[in-house]
């Protein structure tokens, strides 16, 4: 990479983020200065004492730039208020850097604790050596090694040079949870100030000298390709510099400003060659689900034998639509192709995938593609795709200049990847006591991973294994999965299949409770009454922990007492990404429409790292789920996506948002997911409340459909 560019950028960041210097970390481009103490890739300490902690996940609002450094700082015993954060780009030093699957804290917990403990152990050894005392007599606190009997203390910086020469311990001693000083305590986010004064630099704000701006005209129908380009009017506009075909299905308009590129794209005429799905309509989507429902499924989970059960049969079907992530920051990426190498500044959840996809698209070696990770204006899974990164690289190559590719809101709505549709067929046999003796759940939904090219050896979409749990234990359970094709591009969206699976399962439990005249909570607790460990692929679920969050939410919501006049309540729970969540949703009715007034959330996600950020995640997930339940629907029209902006794809606004109360189960278990698990229980709990108010069962999302 060019030194000029890097210096320019670092300078930009440093001045821009006043108070918080977030530098790009480029471990492959020379490492840290030799005078620094850098026992591992996650932390380095300068002789003047500055502790820099490297974040190898992407910040999209979920707080990793605060919570991950806390984990390391806890073991390092440094002063958290004075640390510097460095954002890792695509690297080979940190394993898989994907930010998704509610996995950042889960997967960084062990390596970042160890990284902090290694540094601390070496600093302590360095001090003991200098003072010629036993290590056992020394302690650490707030960035100092202390020898209390002789009243000596040394700052970490002063020990850096000596510590750097010591061997790195392979298995440093970790703290007991009881000794945590930082973890588990409310900490303010370190990025807040930069986000209230306009200085935080998102991908869309990033600039390099000489950069052009580009918008792309994309195929309006699934699978269409460019037949003919008429760029005469576009090129005649002031500020439009280039028009270039990008791949088979897009044309880039490049200009001196965003506005010039926008005007140019408007003036561009492209004739498209339609593919086989040009006539696809929404009815084809529903018909496709119905047709697939007739196919034999693959067993996802089985316990006991559902075939031989007797008793009253209860059946119901549930359906969910396609959804768009719609993060507030539209997709964008800056790329600079320089002949034999390419550098990108990408708001991405998958820097390594962007690197590899760009390398392939440009015919470069992956090591010649540098991907810097910028701040993201939301992700929600949309930035697990590499499309906009590859586009930026291809446009930069086409015009031999650095380019920022920008998507408009309409581009983001129409050319995204979408949360799949799904159909759920549930059936149960109910015993004389009113409790189900068997439950069968058939999930009919297109596989995201298969559409993206992953071969499903066992016929199961891999995400269902993290998100499709059924922890309740009647005697017999069968879950089946039926895959199908769709022309609609699919993507992973916050909680992926869990919001669909839980909507169907939990609404069905309510129907069983209703049919038997039982309380929805009581029926659930009955099905969880025995302590059992349920192995579901890589996760072992505990009936006791699901029972625990249900009881906690119910207690805090006052479930045992009648709801206030004009208020109606529902309850639901689900386990996914290793975490258990229960929610009580309380509504009032305004005419025929429910108004969500209050949501009580109880979560068991093991050891809580930062209660402040966990509370944010719970509030965020409830609002995200509320958008899905009240409004969320993407439909197919004439071979493309019908919706185009926030007018026809509405997001929850302040007047619809309830008070969210957050409760955490105290735990010393290793942390599990937090960003996604609070999404799934909301919709079924809302539908439960609506049933109490109206005696109507809602079986299709969103509730207005």
């Amino acid at each position, binding site marked *: 990479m060019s030194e000029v560019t890097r210096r320019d950028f670092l300078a930009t960041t440093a001045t821009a983020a006043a108070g918080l210097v977030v530098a790009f970390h480029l471990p492959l481009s020379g490492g840290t200065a030799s005078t620094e103490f850098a026992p591992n890739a996650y932390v380095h300490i300068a002789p003047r004492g500055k502790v820099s902690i490297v974040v190898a996940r992407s910040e*999209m*609002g*979920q*707080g990793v730039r605060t919570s991950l450094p806390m984990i390391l700082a806890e073991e390092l015993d440094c002063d958290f208020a004075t640390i510097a954060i460095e954002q890792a780009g695509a690297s080979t030093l940190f394993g898989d850097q994907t930010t998704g699957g509610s996995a950042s804290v889960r997967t960084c917990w062990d390596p970042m604790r160890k990284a902090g403990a290694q540094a601390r152990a070496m600093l302590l050894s360095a001090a003991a050596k200098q003072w010629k005392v036993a290590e056992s007599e020394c302690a650490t606190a707030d960035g100092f090694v202390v020898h209390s009997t002789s009243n000596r203390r040394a700052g970490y910086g002063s020990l850096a040079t000596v510590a750097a020469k010591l061997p790195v311990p392979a298995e440093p001693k970790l703290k007991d949870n009881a000794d945590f000083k930082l973890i588990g305590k409310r900490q*303010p*986010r370190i*990025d*807040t100030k*930069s*986000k*209230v*004064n*306009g*200085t*935080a*630099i*998102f991908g*869309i*704000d990033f*600039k390099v000298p000489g950069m052009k*701006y580009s918008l792309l005209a994309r195929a309006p129908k699934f699978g269409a390709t460019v037949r003919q380009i008429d760029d005469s009017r576009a090129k005649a506009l*002031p*500020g439009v510099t280039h028009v270039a075909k990008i791949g088979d299905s897009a044309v880039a308009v490049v200009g001196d*400003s*965003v*506005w*010039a590129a926008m*005007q140019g794209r408007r003036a561009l005429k492209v004739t498209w060659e339609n593919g086989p799905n040009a006539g696809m309509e929404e009815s084809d989507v529903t018909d496709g689900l119905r047709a697939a429902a007739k196919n034999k499924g693959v067993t996802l989970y089985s316990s006991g034998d559902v075939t031989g059960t007797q008793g009253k049969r209860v059946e119901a079907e549930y359906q969910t639509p396609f959804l768009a992530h719609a*993060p*507030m*920051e*539209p997709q964008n990426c800056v790329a600079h192709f320089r002949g034999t190498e390419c550098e990108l500044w990408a708001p991405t959840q998958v820097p390594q995938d962007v690197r590899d996809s760009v390398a392939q698209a440009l015919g470069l070696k992956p090591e010649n593609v540098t991907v810097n990770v910028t*701040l*993201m*204006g*939301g992700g*929600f899974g949309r930035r697990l795709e590499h499309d906009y990164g590859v586009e930026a690289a291809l446009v930069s190559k086409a015009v031999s200049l650095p380019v920022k590719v*920008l998507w*408009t*809101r*309409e581009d983001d709505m129409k050319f995204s990847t979408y949360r799949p549709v799904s159909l759920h067929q549930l059936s149960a046999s109910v015993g004389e006591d009113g409790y189900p003796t068997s439950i069968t759940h058939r999930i009919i939904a297109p596989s995201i991973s298969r559409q993206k090219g992953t071969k499903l050896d066992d016929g199961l979409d891999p995400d269902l294994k993290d998100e499709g749990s059924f922890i309740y234990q009647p005697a017999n359970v069968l879950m089946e999965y039926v895959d199908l094709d769709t022309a609609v591009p699919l993507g992973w969206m916050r909680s992926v299949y869990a919001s669909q699976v839980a909507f169907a399962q939990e609404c069905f439990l309510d129907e069983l409770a209703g049919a038997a005249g039982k309380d929805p909570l009581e029926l659930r607790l009955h099905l969880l009454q025995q302590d059992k460990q349920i192995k579901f692929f890589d996760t072992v679920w505990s009936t006791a922990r699901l029972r625990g969050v249900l009881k906690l939410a119910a207690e805090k919501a006052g479930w045992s007492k009648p709801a206030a006049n004009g208020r109606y309540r529902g309850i639901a729970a689900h386990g996914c990404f290793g975490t258990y969540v229960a929610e009580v949703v309380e509504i009032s009715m305004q005419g025929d429409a429910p108004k969500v007034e209050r949501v009580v959330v109880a979560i068991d996600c093991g050891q809580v790292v930062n209660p*402040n950020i966990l509370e*944010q995640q719970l*509030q*965020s*997930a409830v*609002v*995200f789920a*509320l958008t899905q339940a009240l409004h969320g629907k993407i439909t197919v029209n004439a071979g493309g996506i019908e919706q185009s*902006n*926030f*007018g026809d794809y509405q*997001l*929850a*606004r*302040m*007047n619809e*948002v309830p*008070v*969210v109360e957050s409760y955490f189960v105290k735990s010393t278990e290793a942390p599990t997911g937090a960003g996604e698990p609070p999404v799934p229980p909301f919709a079924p709990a809302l539908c439960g409340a609506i049933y109490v108010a109206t005696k109507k069962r809602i079986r299709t999302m969103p509730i207005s459909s």
Partner: protein
Amino acid sequence: MESFALRVNGRERHVSVAPDTPLLWVLRDTLELSGTKFGCGVGMCGACTVHLDGEAVRSCTTPVSEAANKKITTIEGLSESSSHPLQLAWVAEDVPQCGYCQSGQIMQAAALLAKKPHPSEAEIVDAMNGNLCRCGTYQRIRKAIVRAAGGGK
């Protein structure tokens, strides 16, 4: 191209742009004030909110020609050193998650408090309902506005 004299955050700035250019892109691309964000381009999300003569407007649908001769305030000019009561309240309540919409939220709220220093809950919701937050920070936004208005602890 046409020349415009703009008064932005107390400074006179001269730009030469097409007269139909939305103020948003003049601020972001020409004047390098990138705190004002692009969200929808049609005035439906509020991420681009700035003040024109003290009124909260959507800069994505305001042509630069309309902004000339008016006092323009962006998030960068709301206060010296992030000291506006709303900025302090936003920090105290730790409102932002991704942070992308927050410049617009704060500018919208600042216009409200300038007119109504002690708004009711309903007035807050009414004023803020045009500003979307996909992270769902609404609950803390409400608390922060109440705090800035002197009603919070």
